[in-house]
């Protein structure tokens, strides 16, 4: 992987922040965008902007081709069986809400169980809380091991014949845990439950094959994988999507409309009410092309090397807690002893280093870790060992600064 060449594709990285060259270590929140993606969106607006699936004019056809072409690219990228299994959404949150509201409310009843974990991002927790409240189903949590992983033994124990839905993150946005989706899906299916995967931290960093994982739904966002904000994907097995009702109604998603009743378009359009996120889909397709050229396996290997390099150095620092398992995705959540993560992040920011500080939209997980907040550094294709060195030095400076003032 030629990281130097990759970095040159990201104009935002080439700037100084607070008098220092920027070190961007917050890609788990959102990734930066390469010129190729920015240009694709720019070109779409300059040449092909039109509404899709209507009218007969030429640029309208071009816009439709680009939009539907993007769907085809997503299908290939995540190895879906059919292109109509790819629904464009605003992001992961909207995608999970669609499953919870449509599939969940139609298929759950009192006594049924929804199984999740305590490591879930709020977006894969609250929609299920709401469905549980509305249907009388109960939420159950697969217990976590001390290092923040789930064991198959506990998966087997938690999922029962009463379980109808298992919802789990592919990769934890706090712990970096990579969950064994395929194995969990096997247990779920054996018990007659379906599996919904929050793939927000999965797809940007590793090869995802939804058929090999055998998950029923897989949700992800474009903006964490070099695409713009406001575009995401819900993948769902056709058999489920076909029986599901839309949750948004209006233009674009209809077949026949009468005064008192209407019918819906076929998949995938029945779930895409209103003018769709056309430029977002164009940007997502460009991002997929960009990542595919680099290679998802190479990306995963590189990020894990960089993370191991960072952890080796962090472990030399006295008074640092690192959360999560040894085998992890490219992110490190940590706290310096006696320094609040906000304060750590402010010191790092004064050195031009961007990290996340807070509860990472995972308040129950913070409770489980017995902390109120943490700091997190997350890596992507454009980060280097030099970034890690600057980060480690920044932490030493934070320790020194707060050591001095105390």
């Amino acid at each position, binding site marked *: 992987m030629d990281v130097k060449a990759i970095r040159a594709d990201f104009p935002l990285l080439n700037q100084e922040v607070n008098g220092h060259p920027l070190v961007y270590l917050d890609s788990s929140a959102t990734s930066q965008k390469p010129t190729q993606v920015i240009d694709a969106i720019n070109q779409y607006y300059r040449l092909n902007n039109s509404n899709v699936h209507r009218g007969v004019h030429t640029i309208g056809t071009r816009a439709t081709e680009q939009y539907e072409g993007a769907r085809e690219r997503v299908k290939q990228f995540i190895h879906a069986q059919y292109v109509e299994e790819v629904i464009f959404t605003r992001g992961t949150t909207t995608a999970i809400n669609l499953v919870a509201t449509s599939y969940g409310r139609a298929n759950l009843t009192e006594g049924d169980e929804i199984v999740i974990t305590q490591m879930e991002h709020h977006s894969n927790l609250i929609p299920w809380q709401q469905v549980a409240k509305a249907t009388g189903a109960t939420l159950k949590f697969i217990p976590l091991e001390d290092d923040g992983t789930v064991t198959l033994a506990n998966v087997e124990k938690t999922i029962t014949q009463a379980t109808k839905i298992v919802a789990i993150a592919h990769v934890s946005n706090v712990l970096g845990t990579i969950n064994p989706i395929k194995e969990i899906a096997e247990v779920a299916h054996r018990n007659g439950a379906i599996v919904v995967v929050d793939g927000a931290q999965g797809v940007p960093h590793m090869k995802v094959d939804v058929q090999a994982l055998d998950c029923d739904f897989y949700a992800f966002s474009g903006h964490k994988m070099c695409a713009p904000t406001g575009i995401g994907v819900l993948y769902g097995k056709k058999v489920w999507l076909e029986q599901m009702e839309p949750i948004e109604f209006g233009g674009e998603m209809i077949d026949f409309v009468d005064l008192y009743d209407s019918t819906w378009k076929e998949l995938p359009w029945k779930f895409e009410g209103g003018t769709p996120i056309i430029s977002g889909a164009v940007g997502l397709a460009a991002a997929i092309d960009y990542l595919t050229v680099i290679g998802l396996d190479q990306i995963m290997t590189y990020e894990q090397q960089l993370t191991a390099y960072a952890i080796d150095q962090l472990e030399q620092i006295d008074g640092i807690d690192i959360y999560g398992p040894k085998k992890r995705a490219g992110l490190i959540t940590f706290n310096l002893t006696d320094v609040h993560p*906000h304060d750590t992040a402010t010191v790092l920011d004064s050195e031009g280093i961007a990290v996340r500080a807070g509860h990472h939209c995972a308040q129950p997980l913070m409770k489980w870790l017995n902390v*109120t*907040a943490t700091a997190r550094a997350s890596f992507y294709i454009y980060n280097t060992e030099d970034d890690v060195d600057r980060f480690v030095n920044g932490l030493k400076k934070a320790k020194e600064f707060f050591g001095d003032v105390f």
Partner: protein
Amino acid sequence: MSFNNLDTLYRQVIMDHYKNPRNRGSLSEEALTLEMNNPTCGDRIQLHLLIENDRVKEAKFEGEGCSISLASASMMTQAIKGQPVEDALKMSQYFSNMMLGKEQDQADLELGDIEALQGVAKFPARIKCATLAWKAMEKAVDQDSN
């Protein structure tokens, strides 16, 4: 190493309030209690106020947060204790203008240490930390008057 820039934020007096918070604890049951959190970052404050004859007789706080939010709570309780509610609200207005970097007249308000937080205005991401306790106070007073 130079910490010039950071020193404008983390002044000694702020760190002192953070390490040795004044008025940390709770009050008897007749006191007003208001809990407020900063949902984006997890800071949480529980403010207890005893108001008698339109005066803040006692002020204490509990909670978790960063140096700026806890120091601000400590300084605020110190500043408003014994003051008329009206002045406490004026101080809150003064504080929020200070966070916006506005020039203003301190009039006859006894601000105590809170002016040490002036430097926060230059760190926009941290303003919400500094204003949390003040927002809690305003809300508590508002609930009391209703």
